[in-house]
C-alpha cells in the first residue's frame, strides 16, 4: 500500500515535470522570444538524449545519421529521455518510450521498402512523435532528396546528381560532360533548374523534369546566365544574367517568358527567395561594402540586410519558416553563418563550410566543405546543436547542394 502511494506520488511528480516542459515548449512556440535571445540558441542548444537498442548494420547507421542531424544524441538507456528499441530482422520494427511520461509514444512495423528506406521512415516518425514537428528523412512519402554538382577531379566538367540526403542512392540526372552548376529544386515537384554549359559551351539555364526526363532551355541570353533559384510557388525563377552588360539579378516565368531586370548593382551574385515569395535575397556591394541585400520580387528599392561582424557574405539561403538566412562568410576562411532574416541580431558563425541549403525543418542545413584544392565534399549540420555528419563522396568534388522541398 505504502509502495503504491509513493509510486503514485512519483508518477504525479513526473507528470508535473512533463507538464512544465510541455508548457515551456508551448510558451516558446506561442510567444516568440526576442531574436537576440533566440539566436543565442544557435549552436548552443543541448541535444535530446535518446538510446538505441536492438537494431543493427545500416539501420543503426541510418537512425543515427538522421536523428543526430536533427538534434538528438545517443546515450545509455538509463540516461535517455526517450528509449528507442526494436529490430530489423527482415523489416524494421521499433518503438519509442518516453521515460518521463512512462508511455510508449510510437510503435511501428514497416514493410515494402529496403532496410534503408524503412529506417528513414521510422526516423521520420520518431522525430514527429518526440518533437511534434515533421522529420526531414522523408518528403511526400519518399526518402528526402538533395541535388548537387559533382565534378571529376582535375576537370571542370561534371554532372548534376540527385541522391538521398545522406548521399546514398546517388544518380546522375545529366549526361552533359560540361560545366554544370547551382541546382535549384522546383518546390513540390521532382524537377530542377540548373546551370549547364552543354549547349555551345555557353552558361545557360535549364528546367529539367526528373519524372519525364524532359528538359527545356529557359534562359539563353548574351553573356552568362547563371545561379538560378526557383520561387517557392514554382512559377518563377531568379538568376544572374549579364544580358544588360554586367551580372545582375533578373526574374522570369518558369517557362522563360516575362524576363525582368531587378537590380543594377556592381557585384550582384547568388539570389534566393523568401519563403513567402515576396523578396529575393542576394549578395552584392553597396557603398564599397560587401553585404547581403533584398529586393522585392516585383522590383523596387534594394535594401541592405545587416550582417555586422562578419565580412564578405555570399550564397544566402532563406529558411522555410522565414526566420533565418544562412550564408557563407569569407574572412580568410569560409564559414557557415546564420542571421535573423529581419536583421534584428548579429550573425552567428557556426562552422567551416560554404553554400548552405536549408532542410524543410528550418534547423538542418546541407553545405559544402573544402577538401583540398578546388575540391569539396558535402556535410549536414543541425544549427541548434551544431552536430554535423559528412555525406559520402560521389565524385572528385561534390558541391552546391540543394535540399528538396
Amino acid at each position, binding site marked *: 500500500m505504502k509502495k503504491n502511494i509513493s509510486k503514485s506520488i512519483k508518477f504525479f511528480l513526473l507528470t508535473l515535470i512533463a507538464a512544465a516542459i510541455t508548457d515551456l515548449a508551448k510558451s516558446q512556440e506561442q510567444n516568440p522570444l526576442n531574436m537576440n535571445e533566440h539566436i543565442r540558441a544557435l549552436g548552443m542548444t543541448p541535444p535530446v538524449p535518446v538510446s538505441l537498442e536492438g537494431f543493427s548494420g545500416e539501420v543503426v547507421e541510418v537512425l543515427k545519421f538522421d536523428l543526430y542531424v536533427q538534434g538528438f544524441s545517443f546515450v545509455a538507456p538509463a540516461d535517455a529521455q526517450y528509449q528507442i528499441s526494436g529490430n530489423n530482422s527482415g523489416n524494421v520494427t521499433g518503438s519509442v518510450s518516453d521515460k518521463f511520461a512512462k508511455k510508449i509514444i510510437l510503435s511501428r512495423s514497416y514493410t515494402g521498402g529496403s532496410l534503408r528506406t524503412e529506417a528513414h521512415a521510422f526516423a521520420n516518425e520518431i522525430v514527429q512523435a518526440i518533437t511534434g514537428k515533421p522529420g526531414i528523412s522523408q518528403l511526400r512519402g519518399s526518402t528526402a532528396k538533395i541535388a548537387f554538382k559533382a565534378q571529376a577531379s582535375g576537370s571542370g566538367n561534371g554532372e548534376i546528381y540527385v541522391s538521398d540526403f545522406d548521399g546514398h542512392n546517388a544518380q546522375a540526372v545529366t549526361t552533359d560532360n560540361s560545366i554544370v552548376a547551382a541546382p535549384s529544386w522546383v518546390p513540390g515537384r521532382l524537377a530542377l533548374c540548373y546551370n549547364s554549359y552543354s549547349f555551345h559551351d555557353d552558361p545557360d539555364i535549364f528546367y529539367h523534369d526528373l519524372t519525364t526526363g524532359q528538359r527545356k532551355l529557359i534562359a539563353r541570353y548574351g553573356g552568362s546566365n547563371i545561379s538560378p533559384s526557383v520561387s517557392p510557388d514554382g512559377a518563377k525563377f531568379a538568376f544572374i544574367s549579364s544580358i544588360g552588360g554586367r551580372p545582375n539579378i533578373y526574374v522570369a516565368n518558369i517557362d522563360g517568358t516575362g524576363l525582368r531586370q531587378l537590380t543594377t548593382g556592381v557585384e550582384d551574385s547568388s539570389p534566393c527567395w523568401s519563403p513567402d515569395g515576396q523578396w529575393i535575397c542576394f549578395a552584392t556591394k553597396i557603398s564599397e561594402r560587401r553585404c547581403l541585400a533584398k529586393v522585392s520580387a516585383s522590383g523596387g528599392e534594394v535594401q541592405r540586410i545587416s550582417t555586422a561582424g562578419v565580412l564578405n557574405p555570399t550564397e544566402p539561403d532563406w529558411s522555410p519558416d522565414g526566420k533565418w538566412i544562412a550564408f557563407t562568410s*569569407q574572412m580568410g576562411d569560409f564559414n557557415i553563418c546564420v542571421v535573423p532574416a529581419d536583421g534584428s541580431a548579429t550573425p552567428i558563425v557556426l562552422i567551416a563550410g560554404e553554400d548552405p541549403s536549408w532542410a524543410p525543418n528550418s534547423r538542418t542545413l546541407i553545405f559544402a566543405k573544402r577538401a583540398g584544392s578546388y575540391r569539396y565534399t558535402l556535410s549536414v549540420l543541425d544549427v541548434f546543436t551544431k552536430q554535423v555528419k559528412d555525406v559520402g563522396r560521389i565524385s572528385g568534388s561534390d558541391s552546391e547542394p540543394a535540399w528538396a522541398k
Partner: protein
Amino acid sequence: MKMTKLIYPLMLAFVFALVATGCAHKPGQLTRLRGPTPLAPPEPPPGNTLPGGDNGIPAASQESFEGMIADRAALAANAIHFSYDSAAVKKSEHANLEAVAQALSADRNLKLLIEGNCDERGTEEYNRSLGERRAGAAREALAKMGIDPMRIKTKSFGKDKPVGPGHDEASRAQNRRDDFVLLHPQAGMGGS
C-alpha cells in the same frame, strides 16, 4: 490553469498510447529518376528582349555567334590577368588588349569570345559572377578602343577551369584571367 497544465500532458500521453499501435506502414518506393531526353536544338525563350541596362553595354545575342569557328591559339599569348578579387583591368595588361583590338580591326568579319576565370578563393557562384565581371571589363575596355562591342561575347567559367591547380600564389595568379578566343566566320559565310 494548474489543472489544464496537468491534464494536457496526460491527455497527450493517452492519445499517443492509443495511436501507438503496431500497424504496418509502407515507406514510399524509390522513384527511378529520368535523365534528360536528347536535346533538340533549343529555341530562344520567348520575350527575348534587351532590357534597358543602365550600366554596362548590353550583350549581343548568342545567335549572332552561332556557327563561328573558335581559334584558341591566335590570342592565347594575350590573356590578361587580374588582382585578387578584382575585375579592374590593370595598366600592365593594356598592351595585350591592344593586340586583341588590332587582331579584330584587321578583319571586320572576325568576332571575339572573352572567357573570365577566377582562383579558388571565393565561393562558387560569387566567382561565377566575378568571372563575368572580368570578361565584361575587357569587353568595355575594347569598346573604348573602338571595337564594336556587339562583335564580342563574354562568358564566365568561375573557378571551374583552373590552369594552375595549386594553392600557391603563382597558380592563383594564373587563374585570375581573361582568355581571348578569336571567332572566324564559317567557310562560305562571308569573310574576306
